[in-house]
């Protein structure tokens, strides 16, 4: 492709660059880069013509969907391609095949597909059909959009009314990271940057526990999806409210995972569990921005001694979260992300991943909670949505990402793990421990 400035569609914003640095880190670990997936389980084969029409409309409205990621000078840009890549693919389970295995294997294959960054399509839509199972997969690379953006793209595809579809992506705004940064004067930005630096230095005073460290090289991502019943989900919500209050459901999931991991591998070295998680800068229910990343990062950290005591752990996580917001440390990552976007990807990735003190991995696991998905089951063209989950690639270490969402009053936990550092059997044991924690069956 001919790189010239006339081909530029859009410059990556600081939050996009943050995810691009992680894409580089995942690739350096020998994995496929920052592939993410949103999977819809469908009751039957959908209306393919309607689906294709809406995907085509989406790509016309948002041409970055078929762009190529290119480095020009120090910065990265979405650039026009000479030949736009196809967006829609169909996969059919052979008549004598097992639908469950076919779906799992196809999604895993899509998530592990390796391709040079410049030629990787920003987003693809895959329809998996068969006699027993049907699924629709949106696969994207993280610099293209965040999970909320993918949720908006899905809602776009699920909107039958033409006029209502036109409302998506409006009002057009600058990247929200830049909008938020623009609210600060230069000295306030410096102040925030220093706050952020001190915050991370403090986190780094405790060495993070790595849940899976068997010394084996990473080979491929695998995933396991566990769906709680409506009654179990109600119980989890009740306990989350009781332990961390109305403001911290995600913290309840994080705390439960810390405790489950500690029970799974109590002898792993390290002093604390540390989990990065993103929060969204979009207004709730907003239909824009669709494309790009509009997030900032936070950390939940708990020393091992506290993880052993349920009451103490949740009290600590709640207080930590309150303090972070009270001291505006949640926004302190914004100037850090802006500064990071000037570094090389290798330098930036190292800064993001490695503890200042020990030089070891900072994250014990990756975490994302997209909350309740307000999507009507009958809104997908020609098929009912029976289930929904996310997948994502993750660096190794920590080789584990937990992605949570609630659809139709059921909490869904998607464990994404890197083999052979972890195995499906180990993740099965981890989920049993996690379930007991979520349901309050432990002390």
């Amino acid at each position, binding site marked *: 492709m001919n790189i010239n400035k006339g081909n530029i569609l859009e410059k990556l914003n600081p939050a996009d660059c943050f995810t691009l640095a992680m894409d580089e880190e995942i690739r350096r670990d020998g994995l496929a880069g920052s592939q993410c997936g949103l999977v819809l389980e469908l009751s039957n084969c959908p209306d393919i013509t309607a689906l294709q029409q809406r995907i085509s409309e989406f790509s016309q409205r948002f041409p970055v969907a078929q762009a190529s990621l290119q480095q020009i000078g120090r910065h990265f840009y979405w650039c026009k391609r000479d030949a736009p890549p196809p967006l829609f693919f169909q996969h059919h389970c052979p008549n004598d095949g097992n639908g469950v295995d076919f779906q799992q294997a196809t999604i895993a294959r899509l998530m592990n597909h390796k391709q040079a960054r410049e030629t990787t399509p920003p987003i693809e839509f895959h329809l998996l059909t068969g006699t027993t199972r049907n699924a629709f997969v949106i696969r994207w690379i993280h610099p293209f959009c965040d999970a909320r953006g993918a949720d908006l793209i899905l809602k776009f595809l699920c909107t039958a009314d033409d006029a209502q579809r036109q409302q998506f992506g409006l009002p057009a705004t600058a990247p929200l990271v830049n909008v938020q940064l623009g609210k600060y004067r230069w000295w306030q930005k410096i102040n925030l940057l220093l706050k952020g630096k001190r915050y991370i230095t403090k986190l780094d005073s405790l060495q993070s526990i790595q849940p899976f460290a068997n010394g084996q090289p990473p080979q491929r991502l695998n995933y396991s999806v566990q769906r709680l019943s409506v009654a179990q989900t109600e119980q989890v919500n009740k306990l989350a409210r009781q332990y961390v*209050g*109305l*403001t*911290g*459901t*995600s913290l309840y999931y994080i705390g439960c995972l810390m405790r489950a991991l500690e029970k799974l591998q109590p002898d792993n070295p390290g002093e604390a569990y540390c989990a990065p998680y993103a*929060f*969204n800068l*979009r*207004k*709730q*229910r*907003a*239909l824009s921005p669709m494309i790009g990343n509009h997030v900032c990062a936070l950390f939940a950290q708990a020393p091992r001694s506290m993880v052993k005591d349920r009451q103490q752990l949740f009290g600590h996580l*709640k207080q930590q*979260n*309150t303090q972070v*917001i*009270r001291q505006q440390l949640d926004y302190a990552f914004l100037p850090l992300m802006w500064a990071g976007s000037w570094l090389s990807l290798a330098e930036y990735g190292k800064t993001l991943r490695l503890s200042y003190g020990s030089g070891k991995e900072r994250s014990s696991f990756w975490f994302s909670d997209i*909350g309740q998905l307000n999507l009507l089951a009958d809104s997908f063209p020609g098929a009912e949505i029976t289930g929904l989950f996310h997948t994502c690639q993750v660096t190794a270490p920590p080789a584990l990402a937990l992605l949570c969402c609630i659809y139709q009053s059921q909490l869904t936990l998607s464990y994404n793990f890197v083999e052979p550092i972890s195995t499906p059997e180990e993740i099965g044991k981890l989920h049993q421990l996690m379930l007991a924690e979520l349901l309050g069956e432990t002390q």
Partner: protein
Amino acid sequence: MKKKLRDFIFQELVFVTDPKRFGDDDDLLEAGLDSMGIMRLIMFIENEHGVTLPDTEIEPDNVRSLNALEHWILRHKKE
């Protein structure tokens, strides 16, 4: 007080098509006010009104609507 709350909520936290038509008793939680939004809202109220809202009182009935928020703040302003 309600105007400042309204402005903050609809400029920073929740998208509604027409904020002017959002009533003082309409449900903010149903409109999309989430846990992170509630945290930010509480910080805004504490800074703006010089009150401390106890963690134990962060419950749906106190944050459900603009009127509920106002009552909650006023209760603590009197203390």
